[in-house]
């Protein structure tokens, strides 16, 4: 009983700050999750098309950019809900702050919307194009010419569009991680691993969203293989993250300890690692190696795991600090 004891008493009791930071509730993890899914969708859609150039595409991949737009909008709604000063939201777009990941993110989001819409419009099959031109809003707003021009532009520059989408997707996915990873004040987050981790998790969850839909056999086979790779990379990144934290200073070690026996151990290992990564990885491998029938289990688990990963990291990161 000779260890040094430290008793710290503070009379600060600021709401949201004490006893430890809890400024971000469910909105931010949900936004980061959806942002990751959209990033994954962009990368995968572009990647699939670049991979299977001449093959016929499934209807699902055609409208998937619209799903991405919807999910992103939902995510941005969550982000908006989190703002404490909502009427000032326009301030994001009154300036560009090169040192602020959030500023980068808000501008990247502006790039993502047109990229996705362009991808959608220019990726439509002939009959779909007719249908799109015939729908009421397009006609009423006399947008037919614009859409037609876009289609023509898309046909001409399809591969460039795909590369831009791919790039924007990587940017979006990495930004969701970078946002947390650059916070020196939160040792749990402060790691270069966060960006690639969130990016790979985004790819994996994006693949999961696509696998929930009716895809072409070839497409889904490719996606499952990519998903396996993404999950494997994600798992190794998590290991690297924890090893990195454990070998860091005392605060980083404390942060790591919260996953290795501390308060977040159970949810992290059960929901993220086992349920969200190892089991779906096993299922995917079984599908590929043993040709078991494809089910919704693996994608559903991946989505649960992806959401849990962000929820836990956002919570644990806020609880971590330098004192």
């Amino acid at each position: 009983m000779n260890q040094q004891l430290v008793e710290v008493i503070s009379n600060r009791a600021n709401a949201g700050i004490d006893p430890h930071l809890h400024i971000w509730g469910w909105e931010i993890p949900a936004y980061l999750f959806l942002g990751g899914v959209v990033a994954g969708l962009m990368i995968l859609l572009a990647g699939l098309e670049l991979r299977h150039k001449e093959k016929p595409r499934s209807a699902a991949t055609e409208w998937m950019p619209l799903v991405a737009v919807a999910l992103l909008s939902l995510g941005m709604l969550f982000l908006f809900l989190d703002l404490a000063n909502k009427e000032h939201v326009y301030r994001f777009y009154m300036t560009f702050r090169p040192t602020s990941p959030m500023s980068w993110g808000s501008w990247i989001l502006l790039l993502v919307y047109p990229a996705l819409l362009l991808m959608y419009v220019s990726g439509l099959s002939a009959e779909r194009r007719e249908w799109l031109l015939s729908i009421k809003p397009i006609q009423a707003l006399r947008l037919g010419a614009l859409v037609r021009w876009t289609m023509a532009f898309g046909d001409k520059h399809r591969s460039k569009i795909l590369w831009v989408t791919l790039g924007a997707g990587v940017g979006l996915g990495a930004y969701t991680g970078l946002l947390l990873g650059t916070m020196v004040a939160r040792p749990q987050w402060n790691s270069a691993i966060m960006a690639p981790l969130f990016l790979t998790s985004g790819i994996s969850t994006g693949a999961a969203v696509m696998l929930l839909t009716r895809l072409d056999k070839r497409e889904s086979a490719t996606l499952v293989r990519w998903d396996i790779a993404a999950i494997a990379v994600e798992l190794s990144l998590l290991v690297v993250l924890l090893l990195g934290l454990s070998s860091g200073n005392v605060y980083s070690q404390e942060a790591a300890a919260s996953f290795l026996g501390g308060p977040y151990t159970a949810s992290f290992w059960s929901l993220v690692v086992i349920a969200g990564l190892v089991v779906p990885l096993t299922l995917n491998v079984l599908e590929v190696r043993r040709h078991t029938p494809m089910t919704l289990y693996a994608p559903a688990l991946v989505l649960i795991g992806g959401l849990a990963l962000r929820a836990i990291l956002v919570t644990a990161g806020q609880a971590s600090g330098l004192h």
Partner: protein
Amino acid sequence: MSATKRYSMVVDTRRCVGCSACVLACMAENNVPDGYCRDWIVKEVKGRFPTLTQEIRSERCMHCTNPPCVDVCPTGASFVGEGGAVLIQQDDCTGCKACIASCPYDARYVHPEGHVDKCTFCMHRVKRGDNPACVSVCPTRALTFGDRNDPGSEISKLLAARKWKVLEPQAGTEPNVFFLE
């Protein structure tokens, strides 16, 4: 003497008794909303009975030379003002809270009106030549405020004469609030 000012504060932990007069003076001076504070007292007792040591600190925003809160602010609402004081332009703040998350000292909070709020070094007082409210009230004169770039200032003399530390130096923020040991 350097041309630019570098406002800093020194907290003499030997003089401070942790009475919280600074905290209350700040609340009154700055209309700090109920349930929040811009400065606060930390007491640290180490050891085992009867071999104990104690440090009492009056803490607040460190007005860092490398303020991470200013870096992460997406709108520029957090900025470095005159004399290096880290300030918030409330009209530009969206309440995204990135600055709060980025602060190693947990010095910021969301004001009930929506914007983020924190210690301003009482720049409105400093500009007219007064000390910040906390410094003015302190019955133990544990707090000293001044221009660290002025070698003749009391604060420069204190830092030259006494052993001091800053909090969380490993965060690389280069705080401008110093604690005399």
